[in-house]
């Protein structure tokens, strides 16, 4: 039976190492109440891999694939991510320019149909799926 996380690892082979770097440079110092020191890396709304963050790619065994997925060498451009069609679910920051772009790109349109039925299914699923032991009474 196929599982989901292996798919994520396959599609984003750099993600786990990137999280390791984030842990090393941000989360661990934060939890240890130590100062966080991050090398400058913000340029033009992209996160350039400089200094320590270079490791996110260097540590990756399939660097070529990672580069292909990411787009450019030396620069980690987190994949552009217009939301696929999901009405009534824009609960965070929006960027009107990006939004316009999304509409122009038919490849990014994954839409659900029949929202009434969908919502109904949605709610039913919440009630049906249980986790062992958490519904004991």
């Amino acid at each position: 039976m196929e599982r989901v996380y292996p798919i994520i690892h396959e599609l984003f082979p750099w993600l786990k190492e990137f999280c390791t770097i984030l842990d090393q440079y941000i989360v661990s110092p934060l939890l240890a109440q130590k100062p966080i020191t991050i090398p400058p890396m913000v340029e033009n709304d992209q996160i350039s891999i400089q200094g320590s963050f270079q490791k996110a790619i260097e540590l990756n065994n399939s660097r070529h694939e990672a580069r292909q997925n990411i787009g450019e060498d030396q620069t980690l451009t987190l994949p552009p991510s217009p939301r696929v069609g999901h009405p009534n679910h824009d609960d965070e920051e929006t960027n009107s320019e990006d939004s316009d772009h999304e509409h122009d790109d038919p490849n990014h349109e994954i839409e659900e149909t029949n929202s009434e039925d969908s919502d109904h299914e949605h709610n039913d699923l919440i009630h049906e799926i249980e986790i062992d032991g958490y519904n004991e009474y």
Partner: protein
Amino acid sequence: MELRTQFYRRIQQIDFIGTKSNKPFRFQFHGPEVVELTNFLFSDLIGRKARARITALLQSYTKPTSDPQEQAETAEKSRDTPDEFRNLFGTLSRALPSASKNRDSHMTYIHQMYNTLAFLEDYNTRRMQAINKDESFIAILDRYGLKAQAGWSVLVRFLKYFNQQIGWTKTEHRNFIQGAQALSTLTDEFGHGILVLLPPGSNRRYVFNVKQIQSRVILMYLS
């Protein structure tokens, strides 16, 4: 084929196993759930929103002195500032967003999520003690007058006490635990670094927003 589409199509084909009344059953996620999960992964976790969060975090740490809000506040209080201009800087400081506060709130979220994981670990330990009818655990319940009633297991005694203390309903309790479990599943797979990428409130939205609950519950079935 675009990565997003690849992911979307493959997820739709997976058979998951859930439990209902402690009996396993097979199910698949359909359109809305898969869209939710795809958006969570490609938009919230590694997409534009994650990039914006990291960028803001890095900017606030790499340029700590360039917070106009703080500088306006300093100017308001500075002896060197002409009295006639104090109000000008004061109102500006209250009008501008604070970079350091934004940074701190993001850090607070990371802390909250980390503490959610710590809570879950403790909770699961207690829960297993109850399920195993651990004598020392039962002694604690007895000592504090948490008596059994007909049909109550040790676990039910504990959960009823716990919910009463917190003021949670059964549903609120379950939603929070499910959310924490989802978070735990993610960190088991990617480590604590993933907490930096998660949207604010990922440890506590479940109680209030059905759609958010759903996407987090989905995450429990990923690994």
